[in-house]
């Protein structure tokens, strides 16, 4: 099962996981009123002393076995130490003892997914969202899990090589136990919010009270909507950060690379997938005739090489950006260098091209 599922999700991944990478925080958050032991352990982690931090927490937990934050921190340290089985047990115990906290479910899901057990990951994330329907990271992870499961099912449908070691989804661990989940996505987009509020003093006690009553779960069966409406879905909650956050810039750079790679490998469908449904072709072409033209141009040469260098990203607003870069194009005998400008929008499935022009 495990190895079966770790299959080729490369193409599914390229659009999505770029936006979803919230790297595992190197330093654990220092809670306002965390127990001194947790603070000490976090300081040790910051210095790279993982074993010391683990010992400190073990000692503390021996006398206060129910401290959720200490247990949560311990789980994160176990992850860093690659002690996955123990980490899973730690987070699983937390979900059992504190089912109202979404974070342990999320992290449990990430670990299951790392092991290739996407079905378990899915149940854990759905549980996280059952308690906190608006949890953006869980939503985003769940989207990736669904995509991973979709890819696995697809491979089984067509009996493709399941053991092909492809790129795994990079899911986001939540590195702090935060009694207050971020506000619902709709609110978040309207008024970009800074990083999540500081952890509350007593996360466990506070959690139930802070379940946002208003944040009703999204309807289970939305009416069929065209792709561009995906921007309204929870999956993009995280894009509501400050304009051109580092994560966005990295995502756009990666998207450029992937776009150029799809073009170079003449994978027309993958290449076209980087264009938003709202894409406006130059020279008054219709989308359809543009697409036909591109299909022809991209697939015809026997070889294409597209290189992208020195991209400059400027933000337009929370979900729109512009990137300028040097493009060097070589197809068969033709070579061309140009400065290209792409207008981008962040959709539910990553950054997509709205306009493409040469400066």
């Amino acid at each position, binding site marked *: 099962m495990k190895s079966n599922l770790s299959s*080729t*999700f*490369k*193409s*599914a991944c*390229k*659009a*999505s996981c770029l936006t979803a990478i919230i790297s595992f925080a190197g330093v654990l958050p220092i809670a306002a009123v965390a127990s001194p032991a947790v603070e000490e352990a976090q300081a040790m982690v910051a210095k790279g002393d993982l074993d010391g931090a683990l010992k400190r927490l073990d000692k503390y937990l021996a006398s206060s076995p129910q401290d959720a934050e200490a247990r949560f921190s311990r789980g994160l340290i176990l992850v860093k130490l690659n002690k996955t089985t123990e980490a899973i047990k730690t987070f699983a115990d937390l979900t059992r003892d504190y089912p109202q906290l979404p974070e342990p479910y999320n992290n449990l899901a990430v670990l299951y997914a790392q092991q290739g057990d996407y*079905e*378990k990951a899915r*149940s854990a994330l*759905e*549980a996280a*969202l*059952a308690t906190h*329907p608006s949890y953006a990271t869980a*939503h985003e992870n*769940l*989207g*990736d*899990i*669904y*995509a991973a*499961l*979709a*890819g*696995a*099912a*697809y*491979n*089984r*449908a*067509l*009996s*493709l090589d399941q053991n092909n070691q492809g790129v795994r989804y990079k899911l986001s661990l939540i590195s702090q136990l935060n009694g207050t989940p971020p506000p619902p996505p709709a609110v978040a987009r309207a008024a970009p919010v800074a990083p999540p509020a500081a952890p509350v003093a007593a996360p466990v006690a506070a959690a139930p009270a802070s379940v946002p009553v208003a944040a009703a*779960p*999204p*309807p*289970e*069966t*939305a*009416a*069929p*909507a*065209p*792709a561009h*409406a*995906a921007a309204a*879905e*929870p*999956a993009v909650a995280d894009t509501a950060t400050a304009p051109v956050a580092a994560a966005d810039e990295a995502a756009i750079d990666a998207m450029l690379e992937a776009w150029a790679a799809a073009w170079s490998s003449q*994978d027309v*469908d*993958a290449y076209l*997938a980087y264009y938003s449904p709202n894409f406006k072709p130059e020279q008054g072409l219709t989308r359809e005739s543009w697409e036909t033209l591109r299909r022809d141009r991209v697939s015809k040469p026997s070889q294409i090489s597209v290189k992208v260098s020195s991209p400059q990203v400027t933000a337009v607003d929370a979900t729109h950006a512009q990137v300028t870069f040097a493009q060097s194009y070589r197809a068969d005998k033709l070579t061309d260098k140009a400065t290209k400008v792409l207008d981008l929008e962040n*959709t*539910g*499935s*990553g950054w997509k091209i709205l306009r493409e022009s040469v400066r």
Partner: protein
Amino acid sequence: MRISRRAAFVLCGFAVSQALAIGSKETSASAVVAAANADAQAGVSPEHQLQIAVQAIDNGRDNDALKELFNLTQREPNFRLAQLLYAQLLAMRSGIADALPMSKADSAQLKELREEFRVRVGHSEREPTAGSLPSDIVELANSEPYVLLADLSRSRLYVLSNRGGRLQVVEDFYSTLARRGFGKRSSGDLMTPVGIYRATTFTPGSALPAFYGAGAFPLNYPNAWDRVHGRTGYGIWLHGVPADTYSRPPRASEGCLVLANEDLLRLKQIIHIDETPVIFSDHVDWVPPERQAARRAEIKSRIEAWREAWAKHDSAEYQSFYARDFRGNDGSSKPHFDDAKLLAKTTTPLDIHLTGLNLFAYPGQQDLMLAQFTQDYSIDNVSHISRREQYWQRQSNGRWKIAHEENH
């Protein structure tokens, strides 16, 4: 709306254009596996589960569809069509436009799976109405507990039970037929025959290449009618599928009828070797049973008249029941009494009993009926029992006459 939603889903391609909302019901992995087992125990067939899921998709209950497909794919991981539907539903749910790692190389297989979808799901919308019976079966002897009827135009194999002359569809299976369809004429034409057959033996899968799955029932193609009409070929079987798949595309065999392994094994309980009729029909019409009454009475009275002519040794009258282009099994064009020499010695009328009569409207052929019965008579205290097959054909003057016959 019903159709278009499904069409967007499977039939017309794979644009994953919907980012659906995310459900929040938790189901632990063990609970769902238990549910999958429960389905199997409850006798819900994998295909029925698929229908339930499709119905849920049609009605916008995607969470139910997802759950059903999860259970189904746990239960039958090699049910590729189920995996594909599951993949698409998950991909939609992920909100990621290109979540499926599709490539051009997949298109042939995808086309086959879409075809299987069309055949399987299309079937569920055209199920025979309750109480109606296939017009192919005009009469079935009480001694035949079952008859198998393949509607080749719908890739469906029906099992009908016979309780004291009352027929009823008890099961029906998706089945794969030959690459070029049906209406086999010659060896290697990659077609499935149309006709009435029986299984000559059962060979378990263990004695066969893995390709045939759980086993095989070879059929007696070419039968008497096929041979008279110069149809050639051999090795037409009912068989299973290799272990790496739950089913095969609708048109994939070289002539055989292919079933899911569990369905093939169900047939082991049903088929009596050399007895159970296996009808391969090009198109089955389901009609009210009373619609058959007139035709049944007409043929039965002709058979009875034929029996009487034989019983009183009236050679001229006997021969009048045979068509002008009649050809016997031995190639003779002149019909003669059975045991003619013995019959010549006796003057008393024979006491001939005909029992176990089956009457079929022969598929793929206008105005042709196959009558099968057991004949039993004694001459000089020696009893003569055999199973006879007669092909009755309506002549240009409207009279039913015997075009071909065989004794077993």
